[in-house]
């Protein structure tokens, strides 16, 4: 069930916003209009005990373990796309960044920059989707901020979210843990998010059933960390795709990574769109996938854990960390040749997350 469907099905969540209502500069003035905006749009959807403390700060109980913090600005265009919108993306994106530290997310914050004239109904739709994503993830939006900029100085709405999480003792995840012989796992198909966004772009609209893979991965990560506390590294291959993620890990180090093109799952529709547009699925952004690097003997047990989650159903091993050709990511191609997998150079598709 999609976010919007879940909202539509909840009675008492019927929007009370008129279609002609717009965000004005006074909504950002800090006065009564701002309070009204929060009361009407954000409070009903974000409702949780931390927010209801009613302070300028959210007070969290001190958790066991080490704390991680991550922040991410979301400026995607279009704001609504197949499989999600900027609201759910802003929640999932930051939850995933926290989870890639091996952490359990405990709270989120949200800062909004809204353009004057933005339809209030659209803002409500975004807030509802954010609230639903946070509730599904079981992580409260603990505090937030709203600013309004003059018409022409923003692009609808930008959302910055920060996530706080707790890393269990014994979990030491980081690039310094990489070693030759480790396995490289991928949680599922590549390119779904980027191609879904691209399919909505003006001048490029093409009919497709591809939906963004935007999803929160922290529950799958929690099970992975429990199954193999010694796993070396987790990364979500977002902007720049898998190629950027793997290159970041080995560039300038004494290690390389070898992957097998035939093992990498790509949906047929995504592959076709890439073919037509001259794109490489390895360069395209994902918003609900992770790369895991672990001891080779942990690979199969971890894949089994991942496959039990909907976000990891198509998890596979795609390669290994090597000592050969340090600094490079190498791939055995579909026909059995070899090549480097390089960073994307030049234009990234603008504003995909």
């Amino acid at each position: 069930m999609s976010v919007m469907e879940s909202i539509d099905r909840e009675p008492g969540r019927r929007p009370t916003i008129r279609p002609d209502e717009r965000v004005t500069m006074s909504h950002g003035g800090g006065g009564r209009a701002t309070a009204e905006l929060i009361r009407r749009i954000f409070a009903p959807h974000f409702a949780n005990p931390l927010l209801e403390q009613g302070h300028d700060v959210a007070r969290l109980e001190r958790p066991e373990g080490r704390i991680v913090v991550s922040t991410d600005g979301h400026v995607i265009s279009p704001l609504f796309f197949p499989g999600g919108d900027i609201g759910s993306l802003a929640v999932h994106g930051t939850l995933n960044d926290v989870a890639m530290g091996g952490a359990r997310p405990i709270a989120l914050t949200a800062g909004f920059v809204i353009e004057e004239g933005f339809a209030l109904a659209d803002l409500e739709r975004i807030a509802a989707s954010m609230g639903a994503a946070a509730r599904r993830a079981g992580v409260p939006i603990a505090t937030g901020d709203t600013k309004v900029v003059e018409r022409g100085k923003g692009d609808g709405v930008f959302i910055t979210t920060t996530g706080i999480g707790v890393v269990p003792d014994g979990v030491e995840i980081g690039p310094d843990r990489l070693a030759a012989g480790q396995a490289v796992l991928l949680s599922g198909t590549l390119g779904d998010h980027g191609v879904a966004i691209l399919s909505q772009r003006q001048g490029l609209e093409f009919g497709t059933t591809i939906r963004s893979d935007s999803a929160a991965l922290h529950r799958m990560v929690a099970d992975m960390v429990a199954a193999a506390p010694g796993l070396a590294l987790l990364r979500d291959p977002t902007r720049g795709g898998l190629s950027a993620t793997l290159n970041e890990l080995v560039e300038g180090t004494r290690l390389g990574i070898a992957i097998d093109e035939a093992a990498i799952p790509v949906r047929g529709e995504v592959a076709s769109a890439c073919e037509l547009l001259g794109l490489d699925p390895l360069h395209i952004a994902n918003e609900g996938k992770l790369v895991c690097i672990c001891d080779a003997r942990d690979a199969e047990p971890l894949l089994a854990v991942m496959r039990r989650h909907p976000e990891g159903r198509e998890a596979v091993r795609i390669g290994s960390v090597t000592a050969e050709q340090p600094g490079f990511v190498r791939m055995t191609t579909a026909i059995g040749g070899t090549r480097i997998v390089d960073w994307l150079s030049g234009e990234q598709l603008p504003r995909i997350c």
Partner: protein
Amino acid sequence: MKYVEEFRDRALAERLAATIRAEVDPARDYNFMEFCGGHTHAIFRYGVQDLVPANVHFVHGPGCPVCILPIRRLDDAIELVERHGVILCSYGDMLRVPASKRRSLMSVKAEGGDVRMVYSTLDALDVARKNPDREVVFLGIGFETTTPPTALAIRQAEIEGLTNFSVFCNHVLTPAAIRHILDAPEIDPAQAVRLDGFLGPSHVSAVIGSEPYEFLSESYAKPVVIAGFEPLDVLHSVLMLIRQVNEGRVAVENQYARVVTREGNTRAQALVAEIFERRAAFEWRGLGSVPDSALSIRESYGAFDAERRFALSAKTSREVKSCECPAILRGVKKPKDCKLFGTVCTPDNPMGSCMVSSEGACAAYWTYRRAETLAEMAADRACVAAGLEDAA
């Protein structure tokens, strides 16, 4: 992806590779030029070199429209934007190509010039319709493949009476360039590349057919195999070329028969002939002035010709010194022979066009085979150093 993945089948690739290994004569070398940058890209993208024996060499040809456009023409395009205030519509791969003084259409855009990336000529027409008070120029580049869409746009602009639309035409012709490469050794023997055959273009041939290559076998005794762009197409075509060479045959063969006919697309050809005519000569980066190698807009459609519409000043445009793009485009040098490769010239900071276009040879070596290429360059340097020591 049906009808594409079949042409990337690993088992079939291995069978073709085994046949090639069995049939090559180990006592000789085979130098085949893939004219087209699309083939260069496919060869590197799939690592086709790894499947053929070491004595089968791919010589990369000048079939990259972005690469062969001389800097002067790009400077002219910039002048259209800056002096004449036009909206310049261009395919994306032209935007980062270095012009004179380290400028590019991208930097012109950043400085406030109205340069827009379009995916098709029809998008450019749309820009013209939406901006009736502005002059809109489409930067037309490419071989015979991209010429029909440009012709179509000009005809459509005439039908609609879009008087603010014109084309800065840089369309070039494949057969003339191949002839020029083969004539080059006579002009300057030092520039000779020994070629045993050609992999003929895929998409270009879909438009012009296989007939225009027949002079290669008739007058130059060079085998040609028109090849599809998929890796199995390339392997199969290499096998067909090896067989021609081994059997001493010389013919134009068509591996890409699922798309290419001898006549080609006659409707597209007629449209192109209606709108364009041959230029007496055109300057190519790397090849110099090549007779009968490009198109200009006929006088009857002169209203849509940016070169007639706007006065362009005389320029002295200069290539970056020590950039080996010209020699690389002729197949005389490889990217590793360029001092700039991988040091000051990378796709993020390109000095020459061959590093910018995804079809350029330097970009292919950098993107797909950088590790090997840099290692070879280091070995070459070590060799030179050892040679110097010996001499001393």
